[in-house]
């Protein structure tokens, strides 16, 4: 029974990877076709229509991939009879799910379709690493993870991570386009991308939106640590880096709101803060010591 679900989960995740790949190619084609626009002054409308159609396919594929991945994550949970957050493989597939979910949610409100190329490749790389390197058979949780706080703490952390990384991707795009503009004009394909001000605002808004959730994730972790390990804060490497991420984003918010940092400096600070999160996920889980050793590696 549980083995059937585990296999089903694997198939769903492979399928989602295939669909994300299609989405990636569609996004790539969209970006490539957009290059033609400046020269084709007479058939401008035609070109937009073409890219528009491909772009819609790309987004549709992204949604389909998200749904397949969601089903895969749920099936993984069912196979183990618990939330699918017991080892690094499961953190990774859920993290990829959160990242592409955040993108799709933000896409409803903001002009973000251009970012789909980056999002689909990031999701593919994450899933690929998960399947190839991190895979572990579905198994019950170790005693320390058996707690309601697992659901609360980990879901808050994963969602925060998804949004932080999206903000990071936007800040990176900002820096890239900014350096392009400072050398002259944007190259053809980049012309359809939003203005620098828009990107600047958007990455700030994402961070401001999710910072309270990250704060909550850290606090929920502390409450859980108190009941599992007898202390709510012990400077365990994971805790330390969660704190560093918190401090870095707090500094980012202060720099923007109080001192009025904008643009390049703010984007670099945002990237730095996001990289502390990634470091925590990759380095501390895989090579780090301490009490958060649940990667199963």
């Amino acid at each position: 029974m549980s083995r059937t679900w585990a296999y089903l989960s694997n198939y769903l995740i492979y399928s989602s990877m295939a669909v994300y790949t299609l989405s990636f190619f569609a996004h790539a084609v969209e970006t490539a076709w957009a290059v033609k626009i400046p020269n084709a002054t007479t058939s401008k409308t035609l070109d937009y229509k073409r890219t528009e159609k491909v772009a819609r396919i790309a987004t549709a594929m992204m949604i389909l991939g998200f749904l397949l991945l969601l089903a895969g994550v749920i099936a993984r949970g069912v196979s183990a009879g618990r939330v699918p957050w017991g080892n690094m493989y499961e953190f990774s597939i859920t993290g990829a799910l959160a990242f592409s979910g955040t993108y799709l949610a933000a896409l409803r409100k903001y002009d973000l379709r251009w970012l789909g190329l980056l999002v689909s490749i990031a999701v593919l790389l994450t899933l690929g690493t998960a399947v190839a390197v991190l895979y572990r058979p579905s198994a019950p949780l170790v005693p320390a993870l058996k707690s309601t706080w697992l659901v609360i703490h980990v879901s808050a952390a994963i969602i925060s991570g998804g949004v932080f990384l999206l903000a990071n991707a936007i800040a990176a795009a900002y820096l890239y386009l900014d350096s392009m503009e400072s050398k002259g004009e944007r190259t053809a394909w980049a012309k359809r991308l939003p203005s620098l001000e828009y990107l600047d605002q958007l990455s700030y808004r994402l961070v401001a939106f999710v910072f309270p959730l990250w704060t909550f994730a850290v606090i929920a972790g502390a409450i859980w640590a108190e009941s599992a390990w007898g202390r709510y804060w012990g400077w365990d490497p994971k805790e330390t880096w969660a704190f560093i991420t918190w401090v870095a984003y707090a500094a980012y918010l202060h720099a923007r709101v109080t001192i009025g940092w904008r643009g390049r400096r703010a984007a670099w600070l945002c990237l730095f803060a996001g990289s502390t999160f990634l470091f925590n996920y990759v380095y501390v889980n895989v090579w780090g010591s301490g009490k958060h050793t649940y990667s199963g590696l």
Partner: protein
Amino acid sequence: MSQEVQLPELDSVGLLRYVWRQLTSMRTALILLMLLGIAAVPGSLVPQRTQNPMAVSASFKSSPELSRWMDRFSLFDVYGSPWFSAIYILLFVSLIGCVLPRTFEHFHAARALPPATPKNLHRMEFYSTWPAVGNELELARTWFKSQRFRVLEKDGSLSAEKGFARETGNLFFHLALILILLGISFSSLFGMRGEAILNVGERFVNTPTSYDSLAYGKLFKDGKLEKFIITVDKFDATYNVVTTAPEDYTLNVSLRTGDLTTVEKQVIKVNSPLAIGNTKIYLQANGYSPVVTVRDSKGNVALQGAVPFLPQDSNLRSIGAIKAPDADPQVGFVGSFVPTYQRSDGNGAISVFPQALDPRLLLSAWGGDLGLDSGVPQSIYRIDTSSMSQLGLKSLKPGEVFTYAGGSITFEGYVQWVNLQIVDDPGKNFALLGAIVAILGLLASLFTRRRRIWIRVGDVVEVAGLAKNAAPGLEQELAIFTTVLKGEK
């Protein structure tokens, strides 16, 4: 005139005031905040005494000179080091210096009325105007009231303001951080934290001497230790047969509290500690204690009992030391215990499952001086064999006897041990309260818009607004306001 900048002469008060102003400036606070983040990094890369004392002593052994230098900079105690403390103390002083004046200011501002409507409304944001009908002021008054704006009415105009929760939330957030820090300091002054290893069947009386390690706060009084006695009745560990990972640990204890006469049965699990008053007892680790009897050449018992061994891997291969100082001559055994024995090429005996399915005790016997009287504290898991000679090696199944020159040792069997962590942390509720207030304050400060809306009615109606922070939404709000004023539904 000289182009040099003339610095004002500073007397000592002036200097203090200058330092204070620098310290409480936003820029300094931000730098301190970043510094705090950076200062936290080395503690996650270098082993810390509080978390991994073994790795610290290993570092001292492998590179003593470097380790001594690192120790001089407190790199093995980063979070208690002078420089780390200096950063966060300065940060909090800066924070208090920043937040307290703002709190008073905000307190006054929150009770004051908004400033009068500016003369040139058309210079403000989202200005719109249309011919007046006459009832607009009345409508605006009602709408502002229903939206809970604070309103100043003057010369046919209304000046309305809303969104003080932004600054209130901001201040509460920062005050809550101070509360968290106070909670942590309170715990470190008045709290206690200790650990004790107990074999199944053993009894623990909560007095300082019962602990293997115990740390008090400076202001914790000995007599304040909670009165209780715990007996370890039973410990069950279940493991996954495929992955060998643990699935459940359950500890059954008998607890006596109060006058110590009535006995209650209690269960302690990893995520559910046992609470006795303000003291909590946590199940932290577990392992095996081989039960042995050591006899001398005449057959007299020199040592009998269960000796806790230290787990080395997830299958609980454990190492330890059995010391019989009462034997003549003294004997000691360097041992390793494997719960489920398998021979492996190269590694000798390994354990393939954490449960004791086929236990083995592998011993190396040493005779001579154990060095227990030298005054140098020794690890209970190790033997200093420098002034001893080896008497022999043997692998034992339960019930088997190893006879060496000068005596024998019998492997009677094994019991499990548990490591209990006993904690009294009186400040944690302040810290929790601080954390909750911090989140609520953060939400209020990030998602509240502070804004002003004005309306002036003469021959024409003039409406405009001002967003005092970058959050969007004023335009839509003014659109709604205008619709209300025009009587459109």
